[in-house]
């Protein structure tokens, strides 16, 4: 019997070997801003657990390295990731000196590389399994539930990022809900305005180039500048239009951020609506007209359903982009997770940066998976609507 290696497995095993034996697993700092000291796996964990973790990691890496059945690889990656997630919490409490509330323990490069390597393995397995859209959403829910349980159970509480969280739990949820409101609200506004605009551009050829060009140019204005530029006009509206201020419109804060995100969102929505409608097969349109449908009936009965997957793709782009861009709102007092990111950058407190960045990435990632799944569901139901 010859041993056969998996090509990706070689990469994974190499990363794991370096991360487990040569890179620090956790960083210990006496307080939140001094430079840290590295701790290896064996140093960071209590007597039995260090070798145990090493054993789990090595076995999982060997499974990845050799050509093994998918199910085994799936098990290896999940077990390794679970072990890492649990034990980094253990390392946190183990390394924190008794009764010391200044010391900070954070995951170090070795830990992140191990997570990366096994996530790569998991991603490869999931890609090769070719999961159905529902199954993908299911995996996402299970993963979210597992992380949620770890958070609620308090086993990560001794890690620095959660200490930052503990210090500002209230503002975390407030900024979080502001972030989501900004991203989703501006998306909703863009869809409400963008769909009719896209339909109009589809029907009236003269408008098309002009509208798309203007929207394209808006996209080229850097986000921080656009946010800034909207401060003045909205300030003017707030002071001069009666009732505007009581609606929450201010020169600085959420309003300019909301408008800026709305403006950025218009292009993908309008452009994809135009492309989707243009891609409706001529034959379908002719048939609809031949059966005596009115323009309106044709729009809602034929064109729109056929163009829907393409329009959804535009919405996916917008949502993921908005979740990212909403971080910038913090620069003009608009709130959101960006508050922590920029505060962290300002204080060179990386844990604070992570407190803002990690939820943002997680939100964007979840939004992408869910919308991808929805897009696939709507377009597989009508395979003929797929471009060849």
């Amino acid at each position: 019997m010859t041993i056969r290696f998996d090509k990706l497995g070689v990469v994974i095993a190499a990363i794991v070997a370096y991360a487990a034996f040569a890179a620090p697993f956790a960083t210990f700092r006496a307080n939140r801003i001094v430079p840290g000291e590295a701790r290896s796996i064996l140093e960071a964990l209590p007597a039995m657990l260090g070798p145990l973790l090493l054993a789990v990691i090595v076995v999982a890496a060997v499974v990845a390295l050799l050509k093994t059945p998918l199910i085994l690889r799936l098990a290896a990656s999940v077990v390794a990731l679970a072990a890492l997630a649990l034990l980094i919490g253990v390392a946190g409490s183990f390394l924190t000196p008794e009764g010391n509330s200044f010391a900070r323990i954070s995951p170090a490069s070795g830990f992140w590389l191990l997570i990366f390597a096994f996530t790569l393995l998991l991603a490869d397995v999931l890609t090769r399994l070719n999961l159905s859209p529902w199954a993908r959403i299911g995996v996402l829910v299970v993963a979210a539930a597992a992380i949620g349980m770890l958070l609620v159970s308090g086993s990560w509480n001794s890690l620095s990022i959660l200490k930052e969280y503990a210090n500002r739990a209230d503002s975390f949820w407030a900024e979080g809900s502001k972030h989501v409101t900004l991203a989703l609200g501006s998306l909703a506004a863009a869809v409400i305005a963008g769909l009719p605009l896209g339909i109009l551009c589809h029907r009236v050829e003269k408008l098309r180039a002009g509208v798309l060009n203007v929207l394209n140019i808006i996209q080229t204005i850097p986000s921080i500048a656009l946010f800034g530029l909207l401060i003045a006009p909205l300030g003017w509206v707030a002071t001069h239009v009666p009732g505007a201020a009581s609606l929450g419109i201010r020169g600085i804060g959420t309003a300019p951020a909301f408008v800026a995100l709305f403006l950025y969102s218009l292009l993908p929505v309008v452009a994809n609506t135009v492309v989707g409608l243009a891609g409706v097969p001529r034959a379908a349109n002719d048939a609809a007209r031949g059966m005596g449908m009115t323009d309106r009936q044709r729009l809602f009965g034929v064109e729109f359903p056929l163009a829907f997957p393409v329009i959804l793709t535009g919405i996916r782009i917008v949502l993921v982009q908005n979740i990212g861009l909403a971080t910038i709102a913090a620069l003009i007092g608009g709130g959101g997770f960006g508050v922590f990111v920029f505060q962290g950058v300002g204080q060179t407190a990386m844990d604070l940066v992570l407190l803002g960045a990690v939820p943002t990435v997680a939100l964007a990632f979840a939004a992408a998976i869910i919308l991808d799944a929805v897009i696939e569901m709507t377009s597989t139901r009508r395979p003929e609507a797929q471009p060849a």
Partner: protein
Amino acid sequence: MKEAGVKAWVPSLLRLALVVLLIAFVSNPGWFEPLLKPLTESNAPAIYNQGSLLTLTLLHLRTVLIATVAATTVAVALAILVTRPAGVEFLPLSRSLVNIGQTFPPVAVLALAVPAVGFGEKPTLIALFLYGLLPIFENALTGLTTLPANVVEAARGAGMTGWQRLVKVELPLSAPIILGGIRLSVVISLATATIGSTVAARTLGEVIIAGLLSNNLAFVLQGGLIVAALAVLIYDGLSAIERYTARRMGQETA
């Protein structure tokens, strides 16, 4: 007929005017002071005065250029790798990774790069590089995997080696699509580079942020407009190259 002829000239004239205006503005911003003055309050300066706009513009472009060249090299190399028989195992995974990677907000990448490399130009370069990789990789992949089968077969049938096929047929044929990716990447990078100034990179973002901090609308406007003008011009230029290469091959362009 005559009217159409005149119309065809309008975009080129506008572009030319934009170039002239841009050069005049960054090299001699003083001329434009009266225009921007009304935007300032209580006698604040109307023109950015903590550095030369020209220098910042050049630094901005340099950052974007370095990041784009690096991203293009790596992305195209990776795309070539996963479309060769030896690397084809990585193709599905690389597709998923690109999809996942695109969900990472640039601000997050930027902020997370700071602990690794410190403040300044480096984290910006890393963020621009990583963010620029994705569109180029995706387009290169599309280009290299949707080549007309007929033509690739003809290249094999003519006795080209794998390397000759890649260099003489596959890459030239995917050039327009790859260029499209580079164009997207450059436009994103031009805008994202401004955020780099929040971690002390010297880009035009400095002007905008100074404006935000001192509540000086004139600064915000001039920084934003220079970046937007650069983006529009570069976008146009790259589109033109793209159209030219595509037209030579008789391909339709959108």
